């Protein structure tokens, strides 16, 4: 009896000791489907690491971006792991705000990360954030409407074909718009789409001397094509539409085509949410034959701020959440179709995933078609496909986005929007010391 009591006491004491020494790490993240799923699966992590406790701060994307930027710039130390994108990683890594991820464990297999994604998250060959899910953009289209229009979507269409198909598929009487594209102003909204589109028209934000290029014919052609296409075949009120608005339209069968993030494929092909789930086809983002396609590259990634006091625990968590084992865990619990896409080459070689996700190959091809280090036809001094990885871009990109959104809404002409964009960009770059 005494021995049993003693053993029970020792067990309780050791459990209390573990609890007392449990290190708590705080993770800031966005409210995306894959992130929510990760929160639900953290028992797997805590059972393997009983000495680490996880706290989640989930925020809307813009608020998250503002919060983590404030925290990291002031060394507030509120977070031990941050969810950030490919825009922040190169800028923050150069400021020494992030810890290099060089201790992710022997089984991590960093070489398996898709090279285009790893390239966007590395500075000087060092990985500063581990991709949780990656995406490019591509064309999602209604196979039935395309057939009705008497056309066949090629795997790699041109903008000319997209324009023709969109106009033919438009059926205003039945509330069907030939094409749905982003119009809502913002550097991560319409400018993500338009910057990627402009790459395929041979345009660029800046020349090698950081001189803004909105006064060049390539931008005029990009914006003209976009505005005319949306006026002819886009939904009404398109200047307010972002990802979610277009997703709702497409799922309700009101779009013939939608060019947007590859992660949308899992939404539009899900019969529980989408009325057109069995009618969706996929194609690469369009080009104009100049060698660059209008697709972007993005990865929501987990990074560790340099100011954290819990780097080891944070690194353990990052390794777990972005590992091959995590993909297997999601597949086991939620099915292969729900595995976070776009991060690991091995996933796209997995026959089970290929079967569950008919868009898998096109997603990988789209990701591979984007090169953040050489995003444009002409040479540029910056990194980033749908953004320019400089701190000034968030403000400038949103200002230009507002002008282009106004042009789409018919509040100003394309020429005026481009002229004002050129002036705004010149002022910003002069103020920032990039140009004299």
């Amino acid at each position, binding site marked *: 009896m005494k021995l049993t009591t003693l053993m029970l006491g020792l067990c309780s004491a050791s459990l209390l000791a573990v609890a007392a020494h449990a290190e708590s790490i*705080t993770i*800031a993240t*966005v*409210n*995306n*489907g894959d992130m*929510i799923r990760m*929160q*639900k699966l953290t028992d797997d992590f805590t059972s393997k690491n009983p000495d680490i406790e996880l*706290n989640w*701060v*989930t*925020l*809307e*994307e*813009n*608020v998250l971006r*503002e*919060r983590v930027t*404030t*925290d990291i710039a*002031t*060394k*507030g*130390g*509120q*977070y031990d792991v941050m969810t950030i994108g490919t825009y922040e990683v190169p800028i923050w890594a150069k400021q020494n705000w992030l810890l290099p991820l060089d201790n992710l464990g022997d089984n991590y297999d960093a070489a398996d990360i898709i090279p285009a994604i790893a390239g966007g998250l590395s500075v000087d060959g060092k990985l500063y954030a581990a991709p949780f899910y990656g995406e490019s953009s591509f064309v999602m289209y209604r196979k039935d409407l395309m057939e009705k229009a008497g056309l066949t979507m090629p795997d790699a269409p041109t903008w000319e074909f997209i324009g023709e198909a969109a106009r033919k598929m438009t059926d205003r009487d039945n509330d069907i718009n030939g094409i749905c594209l982003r119009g809502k102003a913002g550097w*991560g909204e319409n400018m993500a789409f338009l910057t990627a589109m402009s790459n395929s028209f041979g345009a660029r934000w800046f020349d090698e001397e950081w001189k803004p290029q909105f006064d060049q014919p390539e931008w005029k052609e990009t914006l003209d094509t976009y505005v005319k296409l949306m006026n002819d075949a886009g939904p009404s009120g398109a200047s307010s539409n*972002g*990802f*979610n608005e277009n*997703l*709702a339209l497409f*799922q*309700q069968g009101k779009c013939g085509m939608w060019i947007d*993030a590859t*992660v*949308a494929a899992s*939404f539009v092909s899900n019969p*529980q*949410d989408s009325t057109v789930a069995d009618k969706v086809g996929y194609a690469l983002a369009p080009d104009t034959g100049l060698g660059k396609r209008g697709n972007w590259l993005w990865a929501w990634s987990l990074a560790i701020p340099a100011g954290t006091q819990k780097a080891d625990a944070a690194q353990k968590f990052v390794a777990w959440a972005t590992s091959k084992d995590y993909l297997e865990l999601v597949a086991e619990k939620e099915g292969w179709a729900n595995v976070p896409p776009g991060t690991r080459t091995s996933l796209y070689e997995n026959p089970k995933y290929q079967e569950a996700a008919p868009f898998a190959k096109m997603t990988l091809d789209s990701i591979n078609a984007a090169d953040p280090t050489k995003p444009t036809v002409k040479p540029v001094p910056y990194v980033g496909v749908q953004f320019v990885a400089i701190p000034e871009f968030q403000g400038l990109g949103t200002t230009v986005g507002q002008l282009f959104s106004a042009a789409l809404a018919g509040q100003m002409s394309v020429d005026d929007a481009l002229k004002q964009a050129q002036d705004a960009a010149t002022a910003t770059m002069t103020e920032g010391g990039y140009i004299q």
Partner: protein
Amino acid sequence: MARAVSNQHKTIVTVAAWIVAFLIFFPILYTIITSFKSETEAIAGFNMIPSGTTESYEEVQSQYNYFKPFMNSVILSLGSTLLALLIAVPAAWSMAFSPTRRTKDILMWMLSTKMMPAVAVLFPMYLIFRDLGLLDSRLGLTVMLTMINLPIVVWMLYTYFREIPGEILEAARMDGASLWNEIIHVLTPMAVPGIASTMLLNIILAWNEAFWTIRLTAIEAAPLTAFISSFSSPQGLFWAKLSAASTLAIAPILIMGWFSQKQLVRGLTFGAVK
């Protein structure tokens, strides 16, 4: 003599008032309706009749423990209101009954602090909070909310106190009442409707404050504003869940407002017509 108002005129005014009230309340009503829809129903266009599913509420509760941010909201809004009243009652008393040449200027200066956009002082405030160890603390946020709403509380109380005849306070002084007794036993009971409505308004303002409460908290002090914010998604349609989270967040203050509306209206219109 009161002007005669025809029944027809009364009916028109009543109907117009109901229409305006309905239009103002409609977004809240539609949020509540959407919270009882599935995600597919929520995006399917305008529909006032939900299927009645409670799956969004279940999902919201499974994803985030409602009780903790709810308690934080209660503590922050009540705490900041009581603290604001402690400071504002003497301040308003002083300005109402012992005004100086600068009283109006001080009142205007206090109000002018509300004209500055909050984001302008985000970084300095963040650094102060960091250095004082107040990030993600209820104490820090209570002080912050007190300071934010103090100008409005002082202004409202000042207006109410001005309605109270100074002679009554003088009489109390003649009877030997100390300053403390004068404020507690004479002034405060007479200003109860005003203080109550100020208190209610301040609780509502503190409950709904969404700039600082989201930016200065993380886990421990995060109130319901942070709770709602966590359900907004840039990629994915979670409108029903967001509506359920919003309904849960506004329900307590909505119920409180409903029960105390008489007091609130009486206080807000106190002294409006002289």
